[in-house]
């Protein structure tokens, strides 16, 4: 059964991409009114397990990273003015802990729309150059500095912003920034230095997708970084059977994240895409739960 899912993985990713951006009515309304309109359906109250910008016209659900930063901003402002804090942020933290605790970075491999975008673009070149460790460690700066520290420690209330979304996130630029700028002429007049920075970041990543698979997931994604912490302790994990493994290294060649599969399969970088499982000739790799039983075995 797992075989079937692995074969259809791209279709499953496409399905999630469409579901997570299914408020087509909002998109059509936005285009017909020539105004930047974002879906305001009640579904926006739900967090989606992937990087899917809130501001994309047809997006349903909220990006947990964007919501987290906004909650940090709100909390700082309220503390500044001795107001009661909104407890909504604990829902976000709870959501991330629950999803990560169950399956670690599985959502990166199967659900995240931006992951899907990267996978599809890389199919044109099928190149996957490994990225130096120092550049890969930038994802910790992305998470700790841009998502947590900046939104929490900037005390000037006019500077409180979701800094990752504002300066870096290429997913937001691609799926929200570009469509909204195309639709709304008024918005184009508000373009500034930040717009240039964001387009530059997007351009760099778009080029990198053709050279190194999942380069954004490797180097910048704060959501993947959070889930990565859970990879070693999550309910669902991967296992390599050392007895049947022939050390052919096909898994490492195929791995989009360039992980040393045979040595460290539950590394914080693993997105649990199951490509190693697909390619292993001796079927030595499998999904497991912490209770050490094999699940979804073919």
């Amino acid at each position, binding site marked *: 059964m797992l075989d079937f899912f692995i074969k259809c993985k791209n279709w499953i990713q496409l399905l999630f991409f469409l579901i997570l951006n299914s408020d087509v009515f909002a998109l059509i309304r936005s285009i017909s009114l020539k*105004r*930047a309109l974002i879906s305001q359906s009640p579904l926006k109250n739900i967090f989606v397990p992937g990087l899917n910008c809130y501001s994309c016209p047809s997006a349903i659900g909220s990006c947990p990273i964007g919501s987290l930063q906004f909650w940090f901003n709100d909390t700082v402002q309220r503390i500044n003015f001795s107001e009661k804090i909104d407890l909504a942020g604990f829902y976000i933290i709870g959501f991330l802990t629950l999803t990560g605790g169950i399956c670690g970075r599985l959502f990166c491999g199967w659900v995240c729309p931006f992951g899907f975008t990267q996978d599809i673009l890389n199919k044109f070149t099928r190149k996957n150059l490994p990225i130096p460790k*120092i550049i890969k460690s930038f994802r*910790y700066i992305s998470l700790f500095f841009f998502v947590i520290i*900046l939104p929490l*420690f900037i*005390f000037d209330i*006019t500077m409180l912003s979701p800094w990752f979304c504002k300066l870096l996130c290429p997913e937001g630029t691609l799926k929200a920034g570009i469509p909204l700028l195309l639709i709304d002429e*008024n918005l184009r007049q*508000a373009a500034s230095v930040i717009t240039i920075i964001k387009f530059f970041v997007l351009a760099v990543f778009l080029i990198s997708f053709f050279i190194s698979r999942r380069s954004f997931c490797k180097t910048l994604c704060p959501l993947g970084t959070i889930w990565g912490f859970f990879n070693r302790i999550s309910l669902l994990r991967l296992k390599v059977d050392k007895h049947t493994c022939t050390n052919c290294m096909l898994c490492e060649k195929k791995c989009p994240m360039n992980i040393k599969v045979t040595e460290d399969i539950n590394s914080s970088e693993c997105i649990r895409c199951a490509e190693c499982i697909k390619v292993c000739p001796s079927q030595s790799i499998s999904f497991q739960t912490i209770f050490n039983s094999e699940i979804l075995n073919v």
Partner: protein
Amino acid sequence: MKEKINKQPRKLFYIIIIITLFLSCTKDAQLQSTNFELHDYTNKDIQDFYKGINKLIILNFWATYCSPCKIEMIDFSKLYNEYQDKVLFIGASIDSATNMDLIKKICNKLGVNYPIVYGVESYFNNTEITTLPKTFIIKNNKIIEEIDGKRDYNFYKNTINKYITDSVTKKLLLGDNKYFIIENNITKKDNNNYLLNILLQPKQGYYLNGEGYPPIEINIKEQEGIIINPRKLSVPAVAENQSFAWEIDVTNRKQSSNFRIEAFIKIIACSQNQCHIINEEFIIEF
């Protein structure tokens, strides 16, 4: 499985700690807190607030969670100080009414000095407010401009100057006149009252009238429904490289807002060797 602790993440960790300590030392800008009026408009139409106020209205929608809005509000307070007699700023917060305390404290911190309404719905003039900040420029109860997103101080200063004076400058040349230029500049004082400036300037190499000649005369034709004061303009002479200007008050009592006035000019334009008599009619469109 024991994790290898690499040196690089550790270094990164220390760098992050240092930056955090640095940021926590940043001082919040201390701004003057001034009095502003806070109005509850939860269930009322926001237009009730500015109906009947004969100024340029700048209606700005903002929210406590929108940082660019707060930067703009500091600029608005500065502009309100400068243009208080001509412009009214209104800040409409789309936060829920339960956030009234937070709104008050934020406005105090930012030094807001213009009226704030809160608890309004994110709806205005039958359009949803979907982007913040959103600003409407309103004159005579009509929306003349809609601005999405943050703009800077200079942008709003130019916008205000554009709309508080209606100025039209028209250069009028009498045929292929090579002797002088007549320019007019119309400033609208209010709905029916205008200030017309007429500027007369000889071209290079010429001077107008002077010793031995009668004065230059401009006679504006009388018209029913249009009050022109003065109707007869004159000046003894205008030397080369100089100019002369007249100010005329024009009041339109007619039904239509478009009208024109006709004027006759009698000038003697002289160069070094020759003099020319020019009697011409010209028309000024309003």
